[in-house]
Every structure is written in structure tokens, then in C-alpha cells.
């Protein structure tokens, strides 16, 4: 049974220096046999061979014969041709190579469904649309309704966007509930013209 870890008893001496990872049986031995960089060199311009220099050798014999091994090395056959010779060949590739080629295809041409990519672009698009809407819409809202009709957060954004430089730092120090126009006036960071342009009649009474 594997020992369980008790946090209060932690000491470096009790931890084996082995990280605990395994490698498939015979992996290092096989790697030594597979090292043929003089063959990698001749295929260096082809993306597929670059991705997995030994992949062809890992195909079952029957597939190798069908696509013409070893002539394939000389002809530098590509993915498209391989598929036309043997449509199912991709399925015969080891998982590791399928994964690499899959990623490569996704990047180059074939778009595959990836929820992260969708989420990424949806959020970027929404943020862009909201940003544009906010920038265009907010001044007219303020003009027609007055600043007091806005939520505290929107009003803060508006003021940051349309008033003096240097205001941002001060506003950020205040909590949204506590700051109001009167305080802004006292700080004299918001110029009077900006406030007048907001058509706020009684500045002193407005608390955002």
C-alpha cells in the first residue's frame, strides 16, 4: 500500500528523490535504436517529418507496403498524398503522433471545434462591442438623463473617460458608495465646465 502523506510530519529526508514518473517499458532502449538524424536531415523541410521523424516506421507493415516504403523516404511524401493512397492511414498512427499532427492541422488549415477558442473569441468580441457601445452611448445618456441617473459604476467610468487627467487615482481610492460630486468639486479635479456640460442643476445634492 502506498504511504499517505501527513502534512505535520513533513521533512525533506522523508521524500524520495525520485519524482515518481514512469516511462513505458523499453522506452530508452527504443530511443537509442530510433536515433537516425541523418534521415531526419533529409526530410527537414517537410513539416510532417519534422513533427515525427520516426512516424512512418511505426505504421503497421501492411500500411507501409501500401504507401510504398521505403520509396516514401525518397519521395518525401506528404500528408495529402498519404491520405489519397490510404485514407485510413491516420488512424494507424500512434496516439502521440496523431496528437501532434492534429495540432498542426488545426493551426494550418483544418479548423477543429475547440471550446477554448470559441470562448476566447466570444469574450474578446463581447468586450469590444461593449466598449464601443459604452463610449458612444454614455455621453448621450448623461446629456438626456443627467449623471445621477447612472449607476455608480457607470458614472465612475464616465467621469474617468470624460474628465481631467489625474482624477482616476483619486477616484480609485474612494469606495463607490462614498464619493459624490461635492467631493469631486472640493478636490477641484473635475473642471466646472465638465460638470456644467452634464446639465446637473444642483451639484451639491447629488450623491452617486
Amino acid at each position, binding site marked *: 500500500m*502506498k*504511504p*499517505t*502523506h501527513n*502534512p*505535520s510530519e*513533513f521533512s525533506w529526508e*522523508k*521524500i*524520495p*528523490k*525520485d*519524482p*515518481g*514518473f*514512469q*516511462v*513505458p517499458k523499453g*522506452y*530508452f532502449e527504443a*530511443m*537509442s535504436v530510433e*536515433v537516425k*538524424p*541523418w534521415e*531526419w*536531415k533529409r526530410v*527537414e523541410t517537410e513539416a510532417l517529418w*519534422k513533427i*515525427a*521523424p520516426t512516424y512512418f516506421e511505426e505504421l503497421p507493415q501492411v500500411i507501409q507496403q501500401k504507401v510504398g516504403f521505403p520509396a516514401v523516404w525518397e519521395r518525401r511524401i506528404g500528408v495529402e498524398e498519404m491520405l489519397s493512397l490510404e485514407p485510413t492511414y491516420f488512424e494507424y498512427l500512434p*496516439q*502521440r503522433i496523431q*496528437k*501532434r499532427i492534429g495540432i498542426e492541422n488545426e493551426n494550418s488549415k483544418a479548423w477543429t471545434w475547440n471550446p*477554448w477558442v470559441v*470562448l*476566447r473569441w466570444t*469574450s*474578446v468580441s463581447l468586450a469590444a462591442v461593449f466598449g464601443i457601445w459604452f463610449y458612444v452611448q454614455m455621453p448621450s445618456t448623461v446629456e438626456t438623463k443627467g449623471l445621477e441617473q447612472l449607476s455608480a459604476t457607470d458614472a465612475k467610468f464616465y467621469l474617468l473617460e470624460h474628465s481631467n487627467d489625474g482624477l482616476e487615482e483619486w477616484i480609485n481610492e474612494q469606495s463607490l458608495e462614498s464619493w459624490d460630486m461635492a467631493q469631486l468639486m472640493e478636490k477641484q479635479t473635475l473642471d466646472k465646465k465638465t460638470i456644467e456640460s452634464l446639465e446637473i442643476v444642483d451639484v451639491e445634492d447629488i450623491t452617486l
Partner: protein
Amino acid sequence: MEDKDLLDKFFDPPSRNLAFNQLVRKYQQKTYWHIRRMVIDHDDADDLVQETFIKVWHNLHKFQGDSSLFTWIYRIATNECLTFLAKKRKRFFVPIVDVESQLAHKLDSMETFSGDDIQKKLQKAILSLPEKQRLVFNMKYYDELKYEEMSEVLGTSIGALKASYHLAVKKIEEFMLKD
């Protein structure tokens, strides 16, 4: 075989292939384990080892001998790891899940992990470190490299490496003492 002999053989065309095979045999395990500890997954480590040795093959003629052959290979492997992790990070533009958390999660479901609870927790603690600190810790703790060698690989001063290792150890101890 000494590195010098390996290099002499490599630069002699008739024995070039043989010398390279010997070089790979000599350094494959160290290289693999260095990469594996950074990327966790065996298949990814396998690919990166191949990429590393392809680069060694193509660039060995440029090797000046300013550092040892091992630290030179180690530097290539380190760069491969960092590039790989950076690419992975780019794929997750929205940082809901960061790469390190993903790798930590992977540890729980990985068939090729045979360690006990404490080994797994240590790996998770290491994954919680910033990338460079993780590298420094692995190189010092597992590979027992000297600070001088680490400095050659990472291009960082020895003082900074010592501080980085010290911080990493403190953070890991804190992590390990948590329930």
C-alpha cells in the same frame, strides 16, 4: 566515453553517425528527465527530447566548447521546454485555467505516475512555483547541478540563482505543510 572524444569523432565524417548515437545514449536519460519534470506528460517529453536532439544534430558544429557539452544540451532542452509551455499558454488566452494547474490536475489522472502521496504533493508544490523558479529547483534538487552550471544554462547570476532556490524551497515547504 569522454565528451572530447565524442566531439572528435563527430567532426570526423566517417564516424559522425556513430558518435552522435553515442552522444544520444549518454545524455538521453538526463535530458528526458529534465524535460519530463517540466512538462509532466510523457508524450510531450518524448517529442521535446526528439526536438532537442534534432537541434543538437544540426548545431553541434557551432558548439564552441565554452561550456561543457552537457550544459549546452541542457540549455537547448530548457529552451525547448519554455517554448513549449509558452505555446501552450497562448492557446489558453482566457486565463480560467493556467497551464500549471492543468499539469497539476493531470498528475491525478496520469497512468504513468507511480509515486506515493507525498511525491505527488511535492510535484504539485513544484508546479505552483513560477516557471523560472521551477526550473532552478528541479536543476538543483533533482539533477544536483552546481550553481555555476545552472548559471551557464540559464544565463542568470549565481547570486540570483541561490536566492531563487532558497525562495522555491520555502514556498514548497509552506505548500507541503498545508492540509
